[in-house]
């Protein structure tokens, strides 16, 4: 039973991270129908910015709490700035282009950002400072669920809650929902669609940055390539949950994380990915629009 709980907690942590990144994919897809391949790189840039800021501050002797707050803040600011800029450069001019053109542009952007970080920083793995301390009161159960797991789960839950409130309750959220349903109509009722799209990119990037910071301090290392696999997995999670659906991204992330964890624990980690992607195929066969995705109604 202990073993089951251990795997469950590990899967949940992993799933929470997938969910944070998946939200960016799903929100952007919901609003402009684009698979933003550069999103994994935004996550990586978030982690890198946090790494740089945290290391600099720790060298200058700042206290841990200040480091955590400032590094998190910087990661969110710069990731959002990158997300915003990427949209303006690579996607905005392509609003009316054929469907696949923005996708290629996104792939190009992803390659560019990866190599930009590689050249501006280093190709080596770097040790990420331990931003989440080991809490003493957690020690009795640390072998099952550690401090970082708890922090990741709580942070993710809080962020989800805030996001839900923003989407459901605020003017920006309403405008987002309107834009995702019918862009032309939203424009006609006076919504500044370009600004809403930018806002979507900024929010998605901020979430990815927080994900980057959390996972980097969980596993303790980063390099320029971490965005790729995390991006693919998060994208899978988004599709699994129903791309375009915000609760879907969260559910998809958790389902994927748990599946991988149990596949490793009870079968073999050699087949971790096989299980993850078989699950995806299986769900898409029975529910082509994903777990919580709405079936597309054809407008004729």
């Amino acid at each position, binding site marked *: 039973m202990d073993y089951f709980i251990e795997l469950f907690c590990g899967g949940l942590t992993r799933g929470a991270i997938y969910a944070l990144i998946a939200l960016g994919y799903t929100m952007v897809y919901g609003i402009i129908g684009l698979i933003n391949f550069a999103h994994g790189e935004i996550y990586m840039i978030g982690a890198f910015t946090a790494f740089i800021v945290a290391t600099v501050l720790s060298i200058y002797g700042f206290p841990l709490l200040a480091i955590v707050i400032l590094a998190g803040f910087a990661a969110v600011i710069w990731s959002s700035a990158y997300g915003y800029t990427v949209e303006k450069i690579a996607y905005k001019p392509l609003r009316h282009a054929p469907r696949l053109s923005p996708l290629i542009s996104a792939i190009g952007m992803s390659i560019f950002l990866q190599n930009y970080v590689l050249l501006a920083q280093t190709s080596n793995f770097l040790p990420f400072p331990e931003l989440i301390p080991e809490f003493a009161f957690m020690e009795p159960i640390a072998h099952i669920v550690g401090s970082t797991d708890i922090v990741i789960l709580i942070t993710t839950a809080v962020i989800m809650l805030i996001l839900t409130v923003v989407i459901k309750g605020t003017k920006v959220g309403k405008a987002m929902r309107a834009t995702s349903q019918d862009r032309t109509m939203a424009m006609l009722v006076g919504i500044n669609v370009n600004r809403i799209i930018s806002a979507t990119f900024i929010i998605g990037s901020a979430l990815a940055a927080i994900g980057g910071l959390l996972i980097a301090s969980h596993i303790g290392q980063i390099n320029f390539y971490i965005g790729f696999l995390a991006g693919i997995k998060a994208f899978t999670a988004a599709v699994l949950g129903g791309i375009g659906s915000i609760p879907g991204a969260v559910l998809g992330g958790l389902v994927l994380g748990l599946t991988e964890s149990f596949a490793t*624990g009870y079968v073999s980690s050699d087949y971790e990915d096989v299980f993850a992607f078989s699950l995806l195929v299986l769900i898409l066969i029975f529910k082509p629009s994903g777990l919580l995705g709405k079936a597309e109604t054809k407008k004729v």
Partner: protein
Amino acid sequence: MNLMRSKKILAAASVLMLALSAPVAGMAGDTIKFGVAGAHSGDLASYGLPTVNAAKLVIDQVNAKGGINGKKIELLVEDDVCKPEVATNSATKLVSQGAEVVLGLICSGATKSALPIYTNANILVMSPSATNPELTYSGEYPNFFRTIAPDDMQAKVDVDFALNKLGHTKIAVIHDKGDYGKGFAEFAKSFVEKSGKAEVVLFEGVTPGAVDYSAIVQKIKKSGAQAVIFGGYHPEAAKIVGMMKKKRLKIDFLSDDGVKDDTFIKVAGADAEGVYASGPKDTTGNPLSKAAFAEHKKVFNADAGAFYENAYTAALAMVNAIEKAGSTDLAALKKALQTEKVDTPLGTIYFDDKGDAVGIGFSVYQVQNGKFVELK
């Protein structure tokens, strides 16, 4: 166009081309063309670039003394990014440029794909780092030599240490699914099984770059293993030891040369303490080794990186063989390599008839106070 007819034309054209194109022969000019191939860019560049530096240093020395038998040595450097498909491109490029001997091919995969091209052109290839046993054991590549011990030697050293020195009886063998790591892990598994002293309680591969390794660590814990033998490179090793510490799993961690790298200690930090890793024998007592490192520091104003000594050794052995053989003819070079002993940073070595260096082996190191310390 009639398709049948076009097929015939095609077939005829290809036969014609086969007949017309003879293999490009090595050109005898007024310099000796010395090729260097390996990863010089991309994420594995740090494994390949030290070899280029080593070659430069050795060749500059030789040229400064007037070359070999009056001929200067010319360096031809080709990047293969450690990708098999690029390695064949680099190989054909080097062959067509008239390279007479080649130092390198850093990764085993790229080596496997490019070697047939060199073998066919009768060009001597000496690798400082390709450890796949097949490369020498198979006998398919009579032109291939190396100044590093093959993977199975490493696995044997690790397993002996875990079983005999540490006295473990339950071993978990983990790898990163890559050519190098999985190969090492499979050898380790078979050595443990053959020993009769211990059993392999877990044998699994992990996905490099995965978000976290908590599940596999829990599984190791459940398996009751007393030690983990890991085949792979340092980033994954650092993640696994980090996660082991987080999950309060205190068992021995043994790994390979891919982990015996100072970057591992930098990245894993305090978690690295106590980790065992096998690596080439310590040569810091060897004056030639000291000189080689000092030279690198002087010329490039930086510390030498991975496989630098092996590459330096290989370059010395190659130059020595060319000098003794009096040509770059493969048969003559081979004979010289097998009979003429040469003093190098790795000790006094010569080569056996398979192409492996005699006198080069592995030791087990342990991280103690942030440094790899050789255990005698």
